[in-house]
């Protein structure tokens, strides 16, 4: 095969991936018996319709041809009234059952998806567009509703009701029966032919929608930046352009999607017309009784109705398939879990951590760490220094278990870390990322994070140790002050100290800090520094350091370069022996 024949990117399959339709099928189990109940009730309601038609035909026949008066036909009319009422109740019950089934599926899938994202963890999330994932978790899951609540029951009823009707039609008039039997399969046939093309386009449209969503989040988050560059008007044109693209893409799908319902309408209408005309002429020629003719004619539209309903629900299926594709893709991501199940750790503050020959390369080919060796002594304060890209962040992500090394191992004493259950391991350490995340809720709730049972006294004590008590007290509602997203209204130093209070409250033997002192003014830095020093007492502390003051307080410094720890030692030792370190310190010195 010449290279020209090869597509640049793998093409989307023209048919939905069997994995996707299988997933949709297997998810039905989440709904329990509700879907079956919905279909059964729907079927009874459909059968009652035959009775209704029979009574109507009887009535009209009697009035027109037997000169019956109102009192003569009144019993039939009462019967009809009873059927009306029954059908209303049954239709409602059927719909509720189907909706309940759909709700069960949605709840289960959202739960699975969220847990999966949680398992994949923060390191995976940072590489993905969280806008897309949020879209799948909210709108994507919602798109399953119409599929289970309407499409699936409609499909089942489409097979059952026409069959039941057909029995009655054949019993009364085999010619009409043959016409219906002959035309009915044509409808799904054409639908499938048209549906095939639409399905692929629908998937593309869903992707376009997800991209549009991500673009919006991005644009709104960057609105200030856009304004600074006077580009916000330009971006308005982009918004219009993307919306227009979305419209054109959707309309091109709909033109075809509506075509399938056009075909349905066309065939069912023509079929009914043929049935009507043939009945009409046989009545005219006296070959048939009016009652049977009228009865069959009343049943004919009902015969095609479920088929037509399927047409209107068909795009519910396509929407669901588009959404499912994303959901299945996320659910199918491999979690690089440790198979560790050990839930007891014998390790304590006296256990060293050995990092042996660790190598990690990111899926996109970026090097993280390469053959890295380092021992973390119990109780020490270890500073990681190095230029950006030296592998400091990768190292701590490996240590925390958010990434799994391709080779090498981490030993806790002599226990390999990957034999320990992740939850158990995570109880052993506290973490302060570069930009701590505050969650909606009160200041106290944010400090309590993960320990909702902690008393206010404990929270205050932690805040005091984190040098946060004073400023929290000064907030309008103190510890009950509600914080906005990303801690709006709080300074960077204040957010850091709330995050530090979390760590104090957790009281874990190991503390991991990621550039915890970046972005702070001098005073905040001093306060944070003091808090960190307190935190280091009786604990092992590993921190990515950027400042001399931080480094000076460390018991030991690991200098990282190009994915490896090139040297370790105290500040004084390294100043003497490490040219890389000397160079860095000189730069630190200029920083003041």
């Amino acid at each position, binding site marked *: 095969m010449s290279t020209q024949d090869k597509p640049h990117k793998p093409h989307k399959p023209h048919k939905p991936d069997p994995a996707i339709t299988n997933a949709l099928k297997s998810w039905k189990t989440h709904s329990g018996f509700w879907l079956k109940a919905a279909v059964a009730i729907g079927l009874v309601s459909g059968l009652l319709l035959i009775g209704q038609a029979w009574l109507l035909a009887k009535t009209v026949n009697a009035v027109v041809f037997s000169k019956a008066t109102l009192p003569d036909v009144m019993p039939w009319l009462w019967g009809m009234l009873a059927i009306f009422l029954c059908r209303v109740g049954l239709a409602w019950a059927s719909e509720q059952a189907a909706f309940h089934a759909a709700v069960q599926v949605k709840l289960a899938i959202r739960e699975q998806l969220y847990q999966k994202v949680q398992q994949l963890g923060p390191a995976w999330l940072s590489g993905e567009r969280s806008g897309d994932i949020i879209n799948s978790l909210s709108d994507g899951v919602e798109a399953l509703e119409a599929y289970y609540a309407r499409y699936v029951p409609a499909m089942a009823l489409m097979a059952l009701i026409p069959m039941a009707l057909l029995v009655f039609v054949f019993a009364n008039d085999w010619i009409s029966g043959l016409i219906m039997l002959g035309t009915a399969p044509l409808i799904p046939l054409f639908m499938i032919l048209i549906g095939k093309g639409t399905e692929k386009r629908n998937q593309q449209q869903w992707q376009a929608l997800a991209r549009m969503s991500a673009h919006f989040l991005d644009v709104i988050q960057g*609105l200030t930046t856009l304004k600074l560059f006077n580009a916000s008007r330009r971006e308005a044109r982009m918004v219009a352009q993307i919306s227009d693209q979305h419209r054109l893409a959707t309309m091109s799908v709909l033109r075809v999607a509506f075509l399938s319902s056009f075909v349905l309408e066309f065939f069912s209408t023509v079929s009914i017309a043929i049935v009507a005309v043939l009945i009409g002429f046989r009545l005219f020629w006296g070959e048939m009784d009016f009652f049977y003719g009228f009865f069959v004619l009343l049943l004919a539209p009902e015969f095609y109705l479920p088929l037509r309903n399927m047409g209107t629900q068909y795009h519910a299926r396509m929407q669901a398939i588009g959404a499912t594709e994303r959901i299945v893709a996320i659910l199918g991501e491999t979690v690089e879990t440790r198979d560790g199940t050990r839930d007891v750790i014998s390790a304590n503050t006296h256990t060293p951590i050995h990092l042996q020959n660790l190598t990690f390369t990111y899926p996109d080919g970026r090097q993280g760490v390469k053959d890295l060796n380092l021992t973390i002594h119990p109780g020490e304060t270890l500073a990681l220094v190095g230029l950006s890209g030296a592998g400091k962040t990768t190292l701590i992500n490996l240590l925390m278990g958010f990434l799994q090394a391709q080779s090498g191992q981490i030993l806790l004493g002599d226990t390999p870390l990957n034999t320990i259950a992740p939850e158990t391991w995570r109880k052993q350490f506290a973490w302060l990322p570069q930009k701590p995340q505050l969650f909606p809720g009160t200041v106290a709730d944010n400090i309590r994070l*993960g320990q909702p049972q902690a008393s206010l006294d404990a929270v205050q004590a932690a805040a005091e140790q984190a040098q946060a008590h004073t400023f929290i007290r000064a907030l309008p509602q103190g510890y009950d002050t509600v914080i906005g997203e990303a801690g709006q209204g709080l300074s960077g130093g204040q957010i850091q100290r709330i995050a530090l209070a979390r760590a104090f409250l957790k009281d874990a033997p190991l503390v991991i800090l990621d550039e915890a002192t970046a972005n702070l003014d001098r005073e905040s830095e001093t306060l944070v520094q003091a808090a960190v020093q307190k935190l280091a007492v009786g604990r092992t502390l590993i921190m990515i350091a950027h400042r001399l003051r931080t480094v000076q307080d460390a018991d030991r410094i690991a200098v990282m370069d190009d994915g490896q720890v090139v040297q370790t030692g105290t500040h004084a030792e390294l100043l003497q022996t490490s040219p890389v370190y000397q160079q860095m310190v000189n730069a630190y010195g200029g920083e003041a």
Partner: protein
Amino acid sequence: MKDLIRLLRLFKPYQGWMLLGMLLAFVTLMANVLLMAVSGWFITAMAMAGVAGVSMNYFTPAGLIRFAAIARTAGRYGERLVTHEATFRILSELRVWFYQKLEPLAPARLEAYRSGDLLSRIRADIDKLDNVYLRLLVPVVVAMLATLVFVLVLWFYDPLLALVEFTLLMVAGVMVPWLMNRWGASTGQQMVTTAAQMRSALVNDLQGMGELLVYGAADAHAAHIRQLSQDLAAQQQKMSGLQGIAQGALGLCANLAMWGMLLVAIPLVSEGKLLPPQLAMLALFALASFEAVMPLPLAFQTLGETLAAARRIFSLADMPPAVAEPEQPLPVPETLHFAFRDVDFRYQPEGTDVLHNISLDLPPAHKLAIVGATGSGKSTLASLLLRFREPVSGEILLDGQPLQQYHGEALRQHIAVVSQQTHLFNTTLRENLLLARPDADQEALDAACQLVLIHDFISSQPQGYDTWAGETGVRLSGGQAKRIAIARAVLKNAAVLILDEPTEGLDPETAQQVMANLVAHATAQRQSLLLITHRLHGLEQMDNIHVMDAGRIIESGTHAQLLAAKGYYQQLSVSGKLLVEKIKT
């Protein structure tokens, strides 16, 4: 109702599409009623002719049936295409309209809103407004027209028939939807709110997933999401129940109408006032006519949801911008001389002063540094200068004229800013850089990136300048993202360059080099430089330095003067120096 009218006014550019869609919907409906009624009549008439052995003209009814069948099928297809086209055009219009309303509110007014909530508003709420045309306007207008036609036709046969039809149409089309709307409104509002809450919680949880895991709060937060998901499901189930009742009541009305026709028409047939084929015709006519009101309960039910969405959209869009633009802006002068005179500023009217009695000068080609701790009000100075906010008292002058007399956008044309919360967009590095100057060539990009020492890194990437910057630039380290943001500001080549903590997140070595390059660049380009920092290095080359504390300027002078004054600046500086000397010995 006010919201609805306002919404309709926004749709005005597309009224042609909208009217065409309604017309097609009406024609489709009428064709179906015609088809059913004529069929019923035709069958009965043929049977009677057959029984009586007389001939009849079956060409006309057969032709009518054919015509109605075609009109219905084609009309339905056209109606769907046109109404959807109109809907999407409206949506597109709405998005742009909303974005344009949002744009003047940034950044001052939007700080209070969570971005997750904002996103939910724009996307979900605006998507929801598609209901207004497709599910509300079209069905209501068509139903009203159709009811009129039906009643007139039946009146022709017998007023009592018209009365039965009208009564039941009103029950099905007005009373049932009205009741459903009453019962469904609060649930509709709850659904919008719950969905928004869930989205917002998802945004927060995904961003803070690491901390949730480490602090063992992941399960609690998952449970919270589960709870919201269940709440939403319960609300949806309730809504679906109402919807089911409405649909059922409607079907019942249609059947009752047919029943009523029989009840009224059978005696009329017996009396000879109606012809027998008309009995079948009227029964089928009544059944088919209720297609007109079928979509109404759904229309009114979604009304609550839609109005809630519209209210939220309008409430946000109606916020006045923090800064009003002048009616007749002055042209921005060639040389920019900014001056603050006794400027006070606070965020809340009753809050404490963030800036107090600030006076300073930034003449052309002047290098000014503002030094102070975080929270001392330094960044607010920049936001005042950019006209994102206005002073509470005192004034800011440009070229001797109050800053309020210049248009913010024209002003910002001449100012490049590296802010603390800089944003890299989800696109290539090139696109991110070109934001500053869309017509910049590769040479200009290279030069700007070389200046901030990021060029080599970009060139080392397989895709070079076409490398994708991940969400808020996470695929880049903080320092790399920062330097790209600085390069972007440099590329703009504006008369004034504002650097707000430009070296944060940079390695010290790099930071020093980048600062030196920026100062040299500004000097060579005769750019004014406003450096906002809490770091004291590299300030020797500044023409003037203001030291700020708690919103006030407490010291001013050059680096040398400030050192000589032995004030706060000197203290900070000396403690820094001592630290360095201590290390070196």
